[in-house]
């Protein structure tokens, strides 16, 4: 079980981060290796097929599918405008003509003599990928994107909603146990990333979104407030595509939870700096956690260990700092004292592998190994 542990969230004052920027389908990469990019530099673009309309000529003109070619006025690849005639059938002595028109503007993509249908594609929809963080292009992924490298502070949250954005870090609370209520959201937080304490309420989120706040970083949130804010209940934790006006990053979990001192203090040191944030969370096998990246150009050449190549290098050992991630004692930090090999029975009567932790409050507790996360130093 030495390596069977839950990796902790990263809270690093300075590290080298490699951010992969990848198109969903192949396209054009617009940057070169070594090039410097800013938050909003477009690094790659492509286009996805536009919407599709299908015209059933067989029904509209009352013809057989294999006669479609005779009546068409357009061929595959032709441009068409909305309401333009694409096929016509003259009636008796040229009278009672029936026509089929295009329901949209686009290109004739396909004509089927098997089904008598004409497929019209609307213009492609362009997609652009931005650098997201300022830095240097470390590698170009041909036709797919690139890897941007930057030196930065990195803080991971446990759960988030909303996608990539950036803004200056501002503090709305003085300590990690304070609640982020709506009266603490000020007008001058527009376009900023606001750091709260132990809990954000739905009223505060709504006010922040209406003011144009870019992001909220907070220790905890009630599930009900999150559902009320989103307008629906999240079923599976795959997030990041919500269109909610801001990005929310929760650092500890659901309920009232003091933001960890380490996270709070690091963010405090970075107050006023521009931060790239992303609420995207995916929890399955391995996880994608929401992140706050605060670039520090001065430290650019300091370290060259790539953050993205992280693998569990070593397992739990006595002396390591851990945090308990399940009730009771949720959120408490401590140091591992002992890692007994044999299974032990816990309150639920489950025989599990455990560890002994010296908590910061002086207590010594026995906890299932599955219920702690390692604090990366």
């Amino acid at each position, binding site marked *: 079980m030495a390596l*069977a542990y839950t990796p902790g969230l990263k809270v690093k004052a300075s590290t080298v981060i490699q951010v992969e920027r990848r198109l969903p389908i192949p396209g054009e990469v617009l940057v070169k290796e070594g090039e410097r990019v800013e938050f909003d530099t477009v690094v790659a673009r492509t286009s996805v097929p536009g919407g599709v309309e299908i015209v059933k000529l067989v029904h509209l003109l009352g013809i057989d599918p294999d006669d479609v070619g005779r009546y068409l006025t357009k061929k595959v690849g032709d441009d068409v405008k909305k309401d333009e005639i694409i096929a016509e059938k003259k009636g008796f002595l040229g009278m009672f003509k029936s026509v089929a028109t295009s329901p949209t503007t686009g290109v004739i993509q396909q004509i089927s003599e098997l089904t008598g249908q004409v497929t019209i594609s609307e213009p492609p929809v362009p997609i652009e990928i931005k650098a997201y963080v300022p830095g240097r292009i470390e590698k170009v992924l041909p036709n797919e994107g690139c890897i941007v490298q930057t030196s930065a502070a990195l803080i991971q949250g446990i759960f988030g909603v909303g996608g990539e954005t950036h803004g200056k870090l501002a503090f709305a609370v003085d300590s990690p146990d304070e609640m982020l209520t709506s009266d603490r959201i000020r007008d001058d937080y527009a376009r900023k990333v606001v750091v709260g304490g132990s809990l954000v309420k739905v009223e505060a989120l709504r006010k922040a979104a209406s003011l144009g706040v870019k992001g909220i970083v907070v220790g905890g949130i009630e599930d009900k407030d999150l559902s009320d804010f989103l307008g629906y209940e999240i079923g599976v934790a795959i997030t990041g595509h919500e269109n909610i006006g801001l990005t929310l990053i929760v650092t500890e979990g659901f309920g009232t939870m003091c933001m960890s001192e380490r996270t709070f203090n690091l963010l405090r040191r970075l107050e006023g700096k521009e931060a790239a944030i992303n609420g995207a969370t995916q929890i399955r096998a391995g996880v994608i956690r929401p992140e706050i990246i605060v670039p520090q150009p001065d430290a650019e050449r300091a370290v060259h260990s790539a953050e993205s190549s992280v693998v569990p290098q070593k397992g739990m050992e006595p002396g390591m700092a851990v945090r308990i991630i399940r009730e009771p004692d949720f959120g408490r930090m401590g140091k591992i004292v002992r890692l007994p090999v044999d299974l032990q029975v816990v309150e639920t009567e489950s025989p599990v592998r455990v560890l002994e932790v010296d908590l910061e409050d002086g207590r010594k507790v026995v906890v299932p190994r599955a219920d702690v996360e390692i604090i990366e130093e």
Partner: protein
Amino acid sequence: MEDKASSLKPEQMRVILATDCGSTTSKARFFKKINNEYRFVCAGEAPTTVEAPYEDVTLGVRNAVREVEELTGHRLLSESGMIDSRIDEKTGVDLYVTTSSAGGGLQMMVAGVVKTMTAESAERAALGAGAIVMDVIAVNDGRRLHEKIDMMRHLRPDMILVAGGTDGGDIEHVIQTAEVIRTAEPKARLGIGYELPVVYAGNKRARKQIEEILSSKFALTIVDNIRPVLEIENSEPAREAIHELFMEHVMSHAPGYNRLMHWTPIPIMPTPAAEGRMFRTLAERRNINVIGVGLGGATTNVYSVYDGKFVRTVSANLGMSYSICNVLRSAGLQNITRWLPFEADEVKIRNVLRNKMIRPTTIPRTIDELVIEHAVAREALRLGFEHHKQLARGLRGIQRSRTIADIFDQKSFVETYIDMMHIHMIAGTGGLLSHAPRRAQTALALIDGFLPEGLTKLAQDSVFMMPHLGVLSTVHPQAALEIFEKDCLVRIGTCVAVKGTTGEGSEAFKLTAIMPDGSRIEKSMNFGEVVRIPLDERMSISAEIEPSKELDVGMGPGNKLKANLEGGVVGVILDARGRPLALPDESHERRKKLLRWFSALDAYPQTSLQRYSQDLGGS
């Protein structure tokens, strides 16, 4: 790989390692031939590492196997992989096999012409092959063509199965379906830029046109029609093609699987396919009707073998960790809290479930949290079984001769053929069911989730190894069966449940039985009551059950049943709560009842039950 597989000699295998790469956890199971019989030795587990930031499934597998090494002292891992030949008694294995559902398993989209006919057959075939069906497209599914195209582009499946039409019948609709797929040109989920596999199993008269439409943009495989005539469903060719393509196309693009594929001499099997194989074996060997369930972290797989028919369904987003909040969303909070013996604070329960969702590998430390997870499990099972019953039904579109009774009973053509009164066994596997601290907890979850009627044996997978044994059985059936019977299948006992309802507290049935020691017991069960009769595994009692006139135990209302009741680690469970099972709406009454049932089965520690009872104002 075929060469490696054909050179295997089962009779020489003494040390076997099997792993399952689950959505949340990778599980290693170590088997050995001891005193001429194959036995389970020990288990190792570690978080799965198929997705970011690790993106290499073998890391999680190695971590799980390392735990086995620690516990046994047997060396299994080499520098870069597995020691795949046995060097001595403490080094290497004779066989390594694995299953996988990591990274979301095999995600498929299926298409057919008529929703309740060929599309339903295609869905059953894909599910039977171990896939998660993301969407079912049919000509009459009520969506406009552009909506189907949008959906296909958005979903990014691993594979598409296209069915439609009987052989020699009309080809227009299946061609239209193919044209829609070509227009949408969905991209594969894994491996940017590679051709998405499409299996065509429709009208053979349309093959040429299908090839013209699809072969330039997709990796097209054509197999025999899934519905050659309306009366026959021929899903095996499609299922085999899906398995082959799963290995060739999907697995080879998943992170780390190329390496994992080289560690094992036989194909990696989708976890549900392996699990289903064992449930099927169980039913066939005993010639019984079985309902099996794999309650996982991400999905709930339900299997039924009923009068020889095998059906598997997967409820893709009903699970106990990663998908736990989807159970909350689908069932509703009230349906979950109705199983709690304590006052449920809505905010607290929601937060507990959300915190499990975001930290899925954590385990409950308190009885309260354990009870909450068991409440969710009952609802996941209930919803999973409801989904299953929608597909476990006869082929539709067939001309039938109808009796007068059929005409009045319109339901008989659309409802499931599963009659709970004729289910002989319900068996469960998956982390929560296998690792429940008391087997009575599993028993209650299975009973409340599936609501068995009459006499039903209950069983469970001891430490979650059915997928491992399923894939092992493809190489060494004897070893798989020996381990299954001795170490995997835990006989929980027999549930005796009455169907129907009567007045609360009035007599539901009388049981008279001769115990193994020759003593005679007589038990009068009141409606609403649950009672446990301790009876060890592999023991049985001869019993006579006489229900009241409104209730049925299998012989019709009021009719007496004589039967042998088999024991188990829990024993014989007498369930006089009636079917359908109704819980009181009033919170105090409901909690009192739950506590009585939990106490009767000794399901949770007495101290906790007393605490809940005191909260209710009881003693």
